[in-house]
């Protein structure tokens, strides 16, 4: 098939940019370990309250792990347990969350902490909270009549 000279330049430039783009994204993912939340643990969503760590929702300091704190959240229509998460600035935090009923979202406004919570699955994301402030957590997946009233707060505080 014949391609016009300029069309060749255009495609070489376009496909070249695409390859560079995918390489950068790929290196970020597989070399720097920057994947979106993709945890694969499952759970009996009808017994969430009895199963660790969800039998004790809240922020816990942990030792001997790659992260300093675990923020455990249980979502159900239409609230998050606990209603406030407080972590010290600079800490590496693992967010661990699941749903007891329908699909919910866990989006921390103004950050890249954003996970789907699905009944039967445990969602996890590890990140460093490096800026003091109050971050609104919203349910960003439609879950029913009270969906827009479903929110909590992440407080990143200076411990001094």
């Amino acid at each position, binding site marked *: *098939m*014949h*391609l016009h000279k*300029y*069309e060749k330049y255009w*495609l070489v430039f*376009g496909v070249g940019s*695409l390859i560079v783009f*995918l390489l950068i*994204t*790929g290196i970020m*993912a*597989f070399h720097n370990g920057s*994947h*979106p*939340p*993709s*945890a*694969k*643990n*499952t759970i*009996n*969503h*009808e017994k969430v309250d009895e199963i660790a760590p969800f039998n004790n929702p809240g922020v816990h300091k942990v030792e001997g792990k790659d992260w300093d704190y675990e923020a455990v959240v249980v979502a159900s*229509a239409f609230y998050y347990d606990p209603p406030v998460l407080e972590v010290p600035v600079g800490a590496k935090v693992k967010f661990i969350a699941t749903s007891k*009923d*329908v*699909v919910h*979202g866990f*989006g921390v*406004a*103004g*950050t*890249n*902490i*954003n*996970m*789907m*919570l*699905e*009944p*039967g*699955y445990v*969602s*996890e994301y590890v990140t460093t909270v490096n800026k003091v402030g*109050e971050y*609104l957590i*919203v*349910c*960003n*997946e*439609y*879950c*029913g*009549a009270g*969906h*827009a*009233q479903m*929110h909590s*707060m992440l407080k990143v505080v200076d411990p001094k």
Partner: protein
Amino acid sequence: MSQAIADKQNTDTKKQNIVSKASNKVNDFMKVDRKDANVAMAHIYVAMIALLLGGIAGLLQVLVRSGEFKLPWGIGYYQVLTVHGVLLGLILTTFFIYGFQIAAVSRTSGTLTAKQRLICWIGFWTMTAGTAMSSVMVLLNEASVLYTFYAPLQAHWIFYLGLTLVVVGSWIGALGQALRWMQWRKENKGQTSPLLSFMVVCNNLMWFVATIGVASEVLFQLLPWSLGLVDRIDILLSRTLFWSFGHALVYFWLLPAYMIWYIVIPKIIGGKIFSDALSRLSFILFVIFSIPVGLHHQLTEPGVDGSWKFLQVILTMMVVIPSLLTAFSLFATFELRGRALGAKGLFGWLRQLPWGDARFFVPFLGMLVFIPGGAGGIVNASYQMNQLIHNTIWVTGHFHLTVATTVVLTFFGAAYWLVPHLTGRTFTKELNKLGIIQSIVWVIGMTIMSSSMHVAGLLGAPRRSTFSDYGGAEIASTWASYQIAQAVGGTLLFIGILLFLYIFVQLCWFAPKGQEEFPIGEVAPNAEKTPAILENFKLWIVVLVALLLIAYSYPIFDIIQNAPLGSKGYKLW
């Protein structure tokens, strides 16, 4: 494009004109058969009712979310949102596309046989019955599950059955259109088939393969579960099946717009189709790369390996190639035409284009909007960057550019010749002027609405949520100011819908009787012959199925293998 090529094409065109004057004449006055026009118009009527009702729902939503308005009579925000999504996303698009495609096949491959037409009618009535069933359930508040109907929110089984009928009806209609193309191929062995019919078949093939996923979800999961035959449903499997269809759906909307850009627009501006072979190649690439990409809608979900998500991100980005081919072909056509009319300088050809012709101007605005729309799409599918915008109103802003502007304005622009062609009326000067005003109102309204959605989304505002102050959180008050802007833009868009419907009603029943051309461009005379391999659908189906198996076999096997306890149904609205 160099001047030399333009000159050469110009002389070639003249030569060609002398040789094929007779055949051109036939082409110019080829009319869609009256009976075929009826079945096409039936589809378009349903599409327009959906546009009106879905548009009212859209207006109500932006008003509610501005915080200044409350819905009366116990109507729920999410009920209205379901109406908006189902009617505009599924019904307006599918019915308009089928109306256009049936007319396009009849125009380019020839009048349908009685049997083919009957098949199209059966498809139409099946889809319409399904639409009515689902709509009634939504109106009764038995199905406020939005148009993605994610389990375990459980709608009434009649809602799911209605949607099944819409899909099955679309298969029947697709068959009717494809049969006419196959007949042409049989009668004209060894020849390259009519480009527009070929593209229709590509779109229908892609649609058929894509809907197998959602049909399996509804038939084997949602229907038995909502009927109470089974207790529990596998959530992740249902979502994955849905999205194996959900992204191809957007290409099903987009490809008819591409048909109009590739084939109709060149004729309207008086130019030629840049290349038959490249047009076919880009459609085949869309067929192949539109379906094995659904996981990019599930990037932030648990239960699927990051590596498999990344593979589908790569496949998603492959559509950049046919998109670049398309952009090049279109602007080459514009430039060649401008230069043929004597344009000088690097951009002088722009001035030669028929800006006062709504049939060109309105879809052209759609093309321009596709530039920011496509760029936003790359952000959305960018593996890690997706986390910043997933399920925020940024996404809503994005597809209101791509679907609700690029595709919709192209369809509006097409309606200005398609509807009068089918109803035997003419698109008058006054209506043309109104069409141009309509598109400007649309673009202004959309710029206000969509850009405030994009910004609010970057600040974390969720999509698909009614007005809320989120417990008085500071950020939520920032979102609220953007929601006022969305209401202003949305109101302008509703005015745009009313303007368009006014033109539509004129073109159906009141405009002067006459002949309106169904413009079909011809291929540039110096274009090379199209390689036969591009028409070898058996080959492309094998490639498509192979890619689908590579992209989806393991993830689906894994989801089923590691499935947790399934979910019972919930009705939380």
